[in-house]
């Protein structure tokens, strides 16, 4: 990992930042959350045409913190994840991961828009799981998991296969290693997609409505898996979801968004049980009614 992106408080890096099935058997101690970087949005503006999605948004996520973004559709939650994954470019402001800018790079003491090389370097820290899974249909499950570790991280085939097996074991799909994505259920596809993201050993994991496209009976399996991962790893996690129970379980903090602004934030118990803002109450009522 790059030398400058961790807080100076980490004398030793843990090489084991992927849960690898340790979650269930892990002793009951709070995970060490020092290896993962924090995130900072600094007056971030994002427009699509004339539609301003984020207007000078400021917020921070602590290293290893799990934050859930809630709010009505179009409030900018998914855009925040997409900006962090560099699928979109900022129109103003700066995004930081650890102490390095993501959307920009340093030139002298100025910040200029990032080039592809910088983005490539910064993306190594970030992984994302998508609503629609986005597995590669032309590859089997194993190849989906080994492609990027081999091509990007330079792992040997044996190392990549070993890592893939370990992760498939963790997500409970060891027997599907040779299957093609089209032969899997939605829930299984999403578990493979989670394993694929973790195979890159990211330090920040982005979850974009990962259970929204699943049949109701498949939602629980994926959520349980993510709970285990949250419990057994030191990843910084940002999660967009409409599943409030799940949000409550995995998050340290909930941010309520509306129209590209944070309406209110706090620990999940407080946001869900005694929201201070009318807009939050309206939103929660609408979600629970659906």
């Amino acid at each position, binding site marked *: 990992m790059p030398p400058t992106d961790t807080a100076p408080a980490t004398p030793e890096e843990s090489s084991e930042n992927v849960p690898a099935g340790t979650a269930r058997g892990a002793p009951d101690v709070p995970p060490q959350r020092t290896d993962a970087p924090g995130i900072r949005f600094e007056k971030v503006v994002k427009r699509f045409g004339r539609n301003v999605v984020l207007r000078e948004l400021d917020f921070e996520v602590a290293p290893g913190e799990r934050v859930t973004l809630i709010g009505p559709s179009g409030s900018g939650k998914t855009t925040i994840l997409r900006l962090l*994954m*560099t*699928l979109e470019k900022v129109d103003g402001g700066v995004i930081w991961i650890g102490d390095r800018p993501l959307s920009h790079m340093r030139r002298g003491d100025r910040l200029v828009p990032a080039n592809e090389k910088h983005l*490539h370097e910064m*993306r*190594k820290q*970030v*992984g*994302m799981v*998508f609503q*629609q899974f*986005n*597995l*590669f*249909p*032309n*590859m089997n499950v194993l190849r989906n998991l080994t*492609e*990027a570790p081999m*091509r*990007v991280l330079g792992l040997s085939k044996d190392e990549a296969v070993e890592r893939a097996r370990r992760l498939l074991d963790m997500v409970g799909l060891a027997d599907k290693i040779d299957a*093609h994505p*089209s032969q899997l259920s939605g829930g299984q596809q999403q578990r493979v997609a989670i394993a*694929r*993201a973790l195979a*890159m050993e990211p330090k920040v994991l982005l979850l974009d409505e990962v259970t929204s496209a699943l049949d109701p009976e498949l939602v629980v399996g994926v959520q349980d898996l993510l709970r285990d991962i949250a419990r057994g790893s030191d990843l910084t996690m940002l999660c967009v979801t409409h599943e409030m129970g799940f949000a409550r379980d995995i998050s340290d903090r909930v941010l309520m968004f509306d129209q590209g602004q944070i309406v209110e934030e706090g620990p999940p118990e407080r946001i869900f049980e005694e929201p201070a803002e009318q807009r939050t109450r309206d939103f929660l009522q609408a979600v629970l009614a659906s």
Partner: protein
Amino acid sequence: MTWDWHYTGEILPDLLDGLRVTVIATLLGYLIALVLGLVWTLLRRTPSRIVNQTVRWVVEFIRSTPLLVQLFFIFYVLPGWGLTLGALTAGVIGLGLHYSTYTSEVYRAGIADVPRGQWEACTALNLPRRRAWQDVILPQAVRKVVPALGNYLIAMFKDSPMLLAINVVELLGAAYHAGAETLRYLEPITVVGVLFVIVSVLSSIVVRRLEARYATH
């Protein structure tokens, strides 16, 4: 005019020779069309405006002019500029070049058809652009367009008699020569039609098989 089986038997070896030339010209031309079409498509997607606009106009120009004119140009005009090609070579290049503009369009549609999420997954996994193209996007795009590409193979096969105009003795040419010697055209030209049908039907079966195979995943 009655059908003469004896005469048919006499001219058949020449016609089969012609068919061989037709098939060779078609397959070589098709190979050029497949490769060059992809090159056009990829060049049209480069960020450089000069490159992609130039390619766009060249492709548009080739597609909008008749194959026959292009064959004449390659065979009769280019030698004036010092590039002399054999008739079959000129024919293969002409067919390939002309059809590359169609296959390019097919590839373009196939690539556009790959869901945006596939590109996004490539970015999320930090795959370099070239890898994304090579391992993820093109394999999916090509799969989707195998049937359309196969249909152009058959169309090209049926256009190959145009090579007669630049003196390639392909199937129709062979029949024409046979007829010119005896002034009997019924048998040679009919056999040409029958051979075209046979090869076209066989190719369609192959194309349908490929289609079925590539449609599985």
